């Protein structure tokens, strides 16, 4: 089961980093670039047909936890910030922002004259209401942890909001970036009762599209908001008159609908990409991009003999990941150079990585006190180096990947058993209780390098009272140096200094080898040629965040 079904096209807003996936999707190499040369300028009109894989869980921007909800409410509501194609924040509702009091106050100045779809003006009270609702003890949605570092939200005047922080927090842009609700509509509604409010299914926001209709199981309909507050500066955007999102659960049916012209944008299953590129050349336009995340093998750093960093490094040196990407993913992926992708501003270009070097792997094993036995397997004190790798069953990619990895480890003298099982069962019975050596999973990063915190900070490695680690740091990796850097990266607001801090953290994480980063997929979205102006957002492709720039040329 995919926990957070995140079609790259319907990527949750940048505000939610670190969605976890089962891993195991193959994709296609970019060979052609999107040929989006507009013949004439954008014009208003037309209907766009999009796919929803499932019904949305609800349409409230602070309660919904599905990509299908966010596909709809993301267009209806505005949040404080948007993200540019270089992943830096820019103002959406926010006109300007500033850090005061040694970083303990984050002040946001709102645009004036922003109107909700019902004609009322958005003010600081609405921002305060939305954020306080998330922090309310009775709140039942998934966003509360993002606002953990925000102690209070204060309306300074009609258009100014202060976020009072318990400590300086640089990645705050993504953490407070939720659709702003209209406070007035919720007068007399208990926060614990928010989900029963009619607005949960009939959203009223300030975004480029107005909510028109949602028919459960069938479709959602959105209509162009001609009074959008950014319309003028965006050259009259949004352009497309109506957006129809059809609920199509089956991938094959969606593919047929795309080829039949019933859908305008779709991310086909990786196996279909090559065929579509040739068979539909000129009739379907590809948008190709690298996934902002990776499939990785986590190593339990608290289990003998994996507590020894040399063993973990040896496991990494032993793998020819390029060969695995070629063999298991048909070359439709890249080997991640480090925990952060090259497109991120925080990427460290001179990162010293661990490449394929079997001799070095054996040398490290010997340094760790292992000797090669008669059967070719290293052993220490009569104990052979036997490890188990857990992975989800049911994916041919994962099967191929683990089989190849197992053979490569075998070649240097490490005996690894591969155990494929149900994703949830693996999580509950092995990963959370720490009852494993290695496991394969996938992780999606956010736009801020702070995404590394959720995976690598030591405070998240501690088991709870039941002995379980429910965070993503199931490697139970705890390096005080890395912890300090990840904390510093949150405190420092100067981007240059942050880049240096995260560069250092990336290097230590690579050296400590708590994870083996296996691949970042190359994804391809396709769209019909009548849709113009599609923005290829690094890591998210034809994201709906930029739909306001799209237009239709019939």
């Amino acid at each position: 089961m995919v926990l957070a079904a995140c079609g790259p096209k319907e990527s949750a807003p940048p505000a939610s980093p670190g969605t976890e996936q089962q891993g195991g999707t193959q994709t296609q190499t970019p060979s052609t670039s999107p040929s989006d040369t507009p013949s004439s300028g954008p014009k208003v009109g037309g209907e766009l047909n999009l796919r929803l894989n499932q019904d949305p869980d609800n349409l409230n921007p602070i309660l919904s936890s599905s990509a299908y909800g966010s596909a709809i409410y993301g267009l209806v509501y505005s949040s404080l910030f948007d993200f540019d194609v270089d992943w830096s924040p820019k103002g959406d509702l926010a006109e300007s922002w500033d850090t005061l009091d040694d970083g303990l106050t984050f002040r946001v100045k709102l645009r004036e004259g922003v109107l909700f779809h019902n004609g009322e003006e958005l003010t600081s009270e609405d921002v305060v209401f939305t954020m306080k609702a998330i922090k309310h003890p009775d709140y039942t949605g998934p966003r509360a942890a993002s606002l953990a570092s925000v102690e209070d939200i204060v309306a300074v005047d009609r258009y100014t909001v202060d976020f009072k922080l318990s400590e300086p927090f640089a990645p705050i842009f993504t953490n407070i970036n939720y659709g702003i609700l209209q406070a007035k509509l919720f007068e007399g509604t208990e926060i614990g009762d928010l989900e029963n409010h009619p607005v949960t299914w009939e959203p009223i926001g300030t975004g480029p599209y107005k909510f028109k209709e949602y028919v459960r199981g069938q479709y959602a309909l959105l209509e162009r908001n001609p009074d959008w507050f950014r319309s003028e500066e965006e050259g009259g955007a949004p352009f497309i008159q109506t957006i129809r999102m059809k609920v199509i659960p089956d991938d094959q049916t969606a593919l047929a609908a795309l080829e039949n012209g019933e859908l305008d944008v779709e991310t086909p299953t990786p196996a279909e990409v090559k065929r579509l590129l040739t068979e539909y050349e000129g009739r379907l336009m590809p948008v190709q991009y690298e996934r902002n995340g990776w499939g990785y093998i986590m190593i339990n750093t608290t289990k003998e003999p994996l507590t020894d960093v040399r063993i973990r490094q040896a496991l990494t040196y032993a793998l020819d990941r390029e060969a695995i990407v070629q063999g298991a993913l048909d070359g439709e992926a890249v080997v991640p150079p480090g925990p952060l992708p090259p497109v991120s501003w925080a990427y460290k270009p001179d990162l010293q990585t661990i490449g394929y070097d079997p001799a070095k792997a054996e040398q490290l094993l010997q340094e760790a006190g292992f000797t090669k036995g008669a059967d070719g397997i290293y052993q220490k004190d009569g104990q052979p180096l036997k490890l188990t790798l857990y992975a989800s069953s049911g994916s041919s990619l994962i099967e191929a990947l683990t089989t190849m990895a197992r053979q490569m480890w075998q070649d240097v003298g490490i005996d690894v058993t591969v155990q494929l099982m149900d994703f949830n069962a693996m999580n509950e019975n092995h990963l959370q209780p720490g009852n494993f050596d290695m496991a394969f999973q996938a992780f999606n990063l956010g736009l801020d390098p702070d995404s590394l915190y959720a995976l690598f900070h030591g405070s998240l490695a501690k088991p709870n009272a039941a002995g379980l680690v429910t965070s993503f740091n199931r490697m139970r990796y705890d390096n005080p140096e890395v912890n300090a850097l990840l904390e510093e990266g949150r405190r420092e607001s100067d981007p240059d200094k942050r880049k240096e801090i995260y560069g250092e953290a990336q290097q230590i994480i690579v050296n400590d080898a708590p994870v083996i980063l296996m691949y970042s997929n190359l994804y391809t979205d396709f769209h019909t040629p009548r849709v113009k102006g599609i923005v290829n957002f690094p890591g998210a492709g034809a994201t709906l965040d930029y739909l306001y720039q799209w237009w239709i040329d019939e």
Partner: protein
Amino acid sequence: MARYLTKRILNMIPLLFIVTLLSFGIMQLAPGGPEYVILSAEADAMSDPQQVEALREKWGLNDPVHIQYFRWVGNMLQGDFGKSYYYRLPVKEVLASALPNTIRLNFFALVLIYAISIPLGVISAVRQYSKTDMIVTATAFAGQAAPSFWVASLLIWGVAMNSGGLIPTNGISTPGITFETYGWLSVLADRAKYMFLPLIVIVFGGLTGLTRYMRSSMLEVLREDYVRTARAKGLAEKVVIYKHALRNAVLPILAVSGGLLSSLVGGSVIIENVFSWPGIGRVAWQAVNNRDYNVSMAVMLLSAVLTMIGYLLVDIAYVWVDPRIKYD
């Protein structure tokens, strides 16, 4: 008869108890819960066990399973099926939007299945080992053997994609075509073209069983003495078959029709998924995936109750079809 009915209905109670108990237990065995599905959307939320606990506490998921079960039974008996954890809506509302769609599709499917398979079975029996019999038998077995998702894909790619836009690949109706804006004729035509492919898949897959039953039951009846007598009297073959034989041959068909009622509302996960038909099968499938316990339980209960009622109706219908049968 009244005593018999009372007894039968009372017998249903322990049976329903067992069915719901089993479903409830099995559901709890699946790893992960609804709070996990909702919170795992955000990495930060999952790293905060307190939040997970708060939701479990709020929803009463931390109580012992038997307490949860009896709470559910208590509410259910008062007509309260609880809330969907995922959609945050009353379960009734979630089901109510899907139920009519499933019934609409399955009603036509069942009518067609019976209307086609009974005559086919009769013809096969009357002309046993003829070419017609061979063709009917072969088609029936093909329908049974071909997986429905495969037939469905074949129809989408082969028929819908080549129909020049006449037959849609997915959905249930063209938005905007309603009784108010268009005449009833266009509405009817519109709904029919969406139903065309799913109907073919269901009917094709459902023919086999009934046709074979009808054939063998008819063959048996045709060997009976009273059929020979009827023929000896010099009655026309048509009268022999359709008046004397058919009525008796239909009895066993009635026996296998007890599941009819539940299959009318049960829906099919595969067909509803492939054709994007917004029915109850899809709701049930999603509920299982999302660990939406209350929705799963409601669907399970619905189909259990309807199965039981279905078989009860069959037993009552026996009396009506066959005057020899009496319940005391």
